[in-house]
């Protein structure tokens, strides 16, 4: 791995908060993560831990206010958070594109599938209407939508959920992005379709050399697709590791809880298996516990955990964990 080279995307100390009526919600609280060239990085964590907000912050797709984004999102040596409106617009859908969780609601119901793909191509690649339409048809063929030419002329309501997600992928890849932010691309689909979409995505990734930040609940998907995994809890990264090592030996008690019983790598990974339930609930972001945010639910809680925030400890072999258990005293 080219560790000495710059990563494609580096998020440094990202803070995203929402100013709401009840106060300030720190949805993302000091996240650091990197996506190397050509790799797939998995981002996992319970619902509400800030995965989507992290992804949306990268492209600044949150309405500000109420959102406020701070920190650095370095892409090709530039901080995306410093770009002006035009600057970030030229990145969106072009160098970095995004796939959303809900195929049923994320396509515009009053525009044809073809137009929704072609408009981005016209915008970023400067193609003519005809060329862009051809290209849209080509992309639909690439994501294996049967009868692509006819489908391009249809409206989203005529397509099934799986077909719409394929169309979404076609749209996201239409300008040949370097980075794809996939926010739970298969969660809303049933199991067989999930498997098809995932294999489509990994094929396309090979073909286009796209890096992927893959957000998911599904450990099977992570095991199959990702090379590294980042685990988030309540707006913070609690653990990062290469995928094999994480499954073999999770360090953070939260990760252990999530994994519950670990899917065995090498055997056919079970897609569709959800994260293991951990007793207790995610704390409200308005009233974070002092110290380690996980301590009220942690089976290995120590005195220090409720008093002070744990440091991030870099372990050997590209791993890091944010837990007092591993702090050398």
């Amino acid at each position, binding site marked *: 791995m080219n560790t000495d080279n710059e990563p494609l995307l580096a998020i440094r100390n990202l803070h995203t908060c929402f100013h709401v009526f009840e106060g300030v919600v720190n949805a993302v609280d000091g996240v650091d993560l990197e996506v190397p060239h050509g790799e797939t990085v998995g981002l996992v964590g319970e619902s509400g831990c800030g995965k989507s907000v992290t992804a*949306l912050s990268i*492209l600044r*797709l949150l309405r500000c206010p109420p959102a406020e984004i701070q920190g650095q999102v370095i892409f090709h040596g530039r901080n995306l958070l410093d770009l002006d*409106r035009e600057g970030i*617009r*030229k*990145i*969106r*859908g*072009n160098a970095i*594109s*995004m796939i*959303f969780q*809900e195929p049923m*609601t*994320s*396509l*515009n*119901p*009053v*525009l044809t599938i073809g137009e929704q793909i072609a*408009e*981005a191509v016209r*915008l*970023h690649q400067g193609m003519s209407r005809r060329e862009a339409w051809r290209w849209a048809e080509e992309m639909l063929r690439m994501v294996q939508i049967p009868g692509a030419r006819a489908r391009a002329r249809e*409206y989203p*309501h005529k397509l099934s959920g799986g077909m719409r997600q394929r169309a*979404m992928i076609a*749209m996201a890849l239409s300008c040949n992005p370097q980075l794809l932010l996939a926010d739970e691309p298969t969660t809303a689909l049933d199991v067989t379709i999930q498997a098809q979409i995932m294999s489509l995505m990994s094929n396309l990734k090979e073909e286009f050399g796209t890096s992927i930040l893959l957000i998911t609940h599904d450990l099977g998907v992570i095991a199959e697709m990702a090379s590294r995994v980042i685990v988030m809890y309540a707006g913070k990264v609690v653990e990062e590791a290469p995928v094999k090592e994480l499954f073999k030996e999770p360090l953070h008690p939260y990760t252990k809880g999530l994994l519950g019983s670990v899917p065995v790598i090498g055997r056919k990974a079970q897609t569709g298996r959800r994260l293991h339930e951990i007793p207790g609930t995610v704390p409200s972001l308005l009233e974070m516990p002092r110290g380690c945010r996980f301590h009220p639910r942690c089976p290995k809680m120590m005195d220090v955990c409720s008093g002070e925030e744990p440091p991030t400890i870099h372990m050997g072999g590209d791993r890091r964990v944010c837990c007092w258990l591993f702090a050398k005293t």
Partner: protein
Amino acid sequence: MLNYVVKRLLSTIPVLIGISLLLFFMLRMLPGDPAQVLAGQMATPQEIELIRHQLGLDKPIHIQYAYFLGRLIHFDLGRSARTQNPVTEEIWARLPNTVLLAVVAITLACIFGIPAGIISAVRPYTWIDYLVTSSALFGISMPVFWLGLMLVVVFSVMLHWLPAGGTGSWKHVILPSFTLAAFVVAFIARMTRSTMMEVLSQDYTTTARSKGLKERVVVTKHALRNALIPIITVVGLQFGLLLGGAVLTETVFAWPGIGRLIVDSILARDYPMIQGTILVFGLLYILVNLVVDLIYAWVDPRIRYG
């Protein structure tokens, strides 16, 4: 499509018969005797009886209705009890005035209301949004006759720019149509704002932004088209109501439209006139609704009529 239109047009016939039936019997249950009103206070019972006979009111009510329907088939609505002129003629004389006012008012309302609503939805909780929402609140709660009188005071009495009432030139149209439009502008602006706010928070709007589209394109191409259905509904309904005439505005500006015709004929218990105007109003309302439904199908690909 043509099939659908024909079917819808045919289905107006039973609706109109229903309206006429209700109207016919309800009118005759109203207190007040048309013959008495027409004959005046000093009339003798014999005179009243004579007029009653001339109006056909001495016959049993179902016979009266049968006569009415029989004439209706020939598009004959009878003669006004008050003026003796054919009802259709009286309506024809007034309808263009009402339609003119309604069209101008609804056009003004769309030109000002829809953009105002869009702007305040795109910039919510900014000064411009507050300006739009508070003016809209003002427009909705302001009494029409008061607004009309104020406009007359300012533009006719004080500035002598525009006539205070009557018809004849485009200048006569300005004050009544603005008066009439005030409420509709406000209503449409509020409706547009709330619909656009909702559409702008939909997932597909985020998708559109994530493609790098300009905000102007996101708003006009992606969001507005989705917001159009509720907006068109409101515009259609308001237009339908305006076609029924605007009694207060017509009264303030001495505007000879349908609204005053209806009120005058109700006061005079002029049965044929009331029946005629209300039937015509019903027909126009149904037609406007049909046009609105056809526009739906054009705007939203999910709607198809067989």
